[in-house]
């Protein structure tokens, strides 16, 4: 780092400042490039905010990002609900699904990861490769037989099929993430605890889990967002509007109201549905930036 810093500096002191000038144009080009990408990337997000304040007839055809005369009618219309079901019902259902998923993932994946990372038991390498194998398995192979099973058990139109996998650690990605994290914790911690007479359960609960906080937070955030966005699971398993998640509520909104008639309402509802994820993202952004800073220190 210091090396690359020094070279352009010595050039600038020697001659007037061709190096500095080049660095300035380089920096300008960099920022123009980055801003151009930023504009394209953020356009749809900014657009949906602006469009939710436009009258329905302007949503598609007006190229103004923000309306000259913003209206609140789209949001007021949402208060009426969709087909006699309050928007809040969909939110409660999604919240139940998302938080239920987070709890399941945190418990089951951390227990499994602890076994893989900290317990030397027979067959663990075989089980670990099986687990990694499920990472690459297309979910659709399991879709039909799982549906048949839950249908036979009369669990269709409940949240059991959507949640049970989360409590049985079938999300291999999070197990893998936690295993990687736990492997890097110093072994001496367990050893000291064991000499004090702690069993695995105590070590897991009092030592490993607290130290795994970053991995647990990352898993929790991703799980929440995935469940919130999940579309195929609720589409297949839920068939009573009162049980619908926000995703299905949105689809019902589109199909019931006629797209053209209430375009504004649909876009406003889309924005409201995105808000929890966007808020999570803004909170998560700090993690991204902090992670950035520490990796910068190491590099």
């Amino acid at each position: 780092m210091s090396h690359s810093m020094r070279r352009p500096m010595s050039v600038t002191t020697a001659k007037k400042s061709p190096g500095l000038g080049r660095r300035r144009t380089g920096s300008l080009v960099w920022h123009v490039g980055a801003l151009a990408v930023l504009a394209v990337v953020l356009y749809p997000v900014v657009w949906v905010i602006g469009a939710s304040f436009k009258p329905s007839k302007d949503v598609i055809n007006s190229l103004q990002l923000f309306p000259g005369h913003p209206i609140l009618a789209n949001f007021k219309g949402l208060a009426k609900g969709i087909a006699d079901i309050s928007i809040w019902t969909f939110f409660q259902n999604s919240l139940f699904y998302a938080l239920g998923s987070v709890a399941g993932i945190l418990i089951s994946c951390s227990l499994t990861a602890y076994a893989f990372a900290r317990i030397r038991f027979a067959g663990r390498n075989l089980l670990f490769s099986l687990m990694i194998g499920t990472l690459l398995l297309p979910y659709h192979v399991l879709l039909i037989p799982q549906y048949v099973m839950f249908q036979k058990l009369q669990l269709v139109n409940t949240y059991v099929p959507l949640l049970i996998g989360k409590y049985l650690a079938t999300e291999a990605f999070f197990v893998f993430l936690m295993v990687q994290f736990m492997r890097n914790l110093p072994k001496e911690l367990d050893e000291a605890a064991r000499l004090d007479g702690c069993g695995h359960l105590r070590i897991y609960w009092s030592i490993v889990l607290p130290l795994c906080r970053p991995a647990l937070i990352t898993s929790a955030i991703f799980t929440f967002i995935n469940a919130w966005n999940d579309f195929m699971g609720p589409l297949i398993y839920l068939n009573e509007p009162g049980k619908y998640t926000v995703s299905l509520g949105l689809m019902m909104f589109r199909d019931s109201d006629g797209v053209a008639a209430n375009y504004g309402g649909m876009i406003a509802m889309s924005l409201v549905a995105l808000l929890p994820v966007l808020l999570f993202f803004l909170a998560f952004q700090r993690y991204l930036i902090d992670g950035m800073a520490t990796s910068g220190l190491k590099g």
Partner: protein
Amino acid sequence: MGTAVTLVDDAPPDTRQTRSATPAAKKRRGRRENLAGYLFMSPWIAGFLLLTAGPMVASLYFAFTDYNLFDSPKWIGFDNFTRMFDDPRWQKSVEVTAKYVVIGTPLKLLLALGVAMLLAQSRRGQALYRAAFYAPSLIGASVSIGFVWRTLFSDGAVVDRTQSLFGSHVGGWVGDPDWILYSLVALTVWQFGAPMVIFLAGLKQVPRELYEAAAMDGAGPFRRFWNITLPMISPVLFFNVLLETIHSFQIFGSAYVVSNSQCGPADATLVYTCYLYQQGFKNAQMGFASAMAWMLLLAVALVTAVLFWSQKKWVHYEEDAQ
């Protein structure tokens, strides 16, 4: 590791004092470790048997049956597969999916790598850009963004008008069978942030001295990219190619939502899983849908195998890495 294990000892206090574990104590401890391991693993094992292995076997069986969910499955041998290969809609779904994967994945990864290289020249605001570019990966799969996409690519909306400025009038991509798939490609490319973050982490691992040495030897930016950057980040590139390819084979939600639940018009967005969904859940053809699912599994396994085989030729792992 070996010595550490002899120090670790859960045996009762009386035997622990001796420290040099007797074979009997070792065996007992081994058994206790096994028991503890399987107890901790028990949720995963139950999930694996009930929700993965069991269903896979059942799915393989259904693939050879005629099954409508209500009558018991009837064995029909390879009929589902022969019917599938003759089915023009199945052929169409393979074509649509292949097009989506082959066009979308490379574009997304190229953009991810390009922007990662731009961001890697650490300048002010980099962390902010990185976070902002990552955001679409979190919301891209939502129904909301599906609606937004459909609107932005409609007749008279922003994409259509911009395109018309360049003298090519389509009248909205989502209504046109020749164009709608490209709106889905645009949607996946828009989510380049996830692979970008991984590329960026890989680029940060490349030692700066390599570039400095190459620059002193007079290597230009292209040579430096080809001979240093690319080999050094090849493990990360491999990981991204594998994950993104497998992932894009399984596209469902965005195709379903952007096409107004029709996977059309004219089957133009009939991606593989959409046809599987229609056959399984709309037509109650559980046997046919299972056969389709197994073909998808075979295709994904084949692509994975080819990628793993090819990595010998182009993925460069550092010898001293663990």
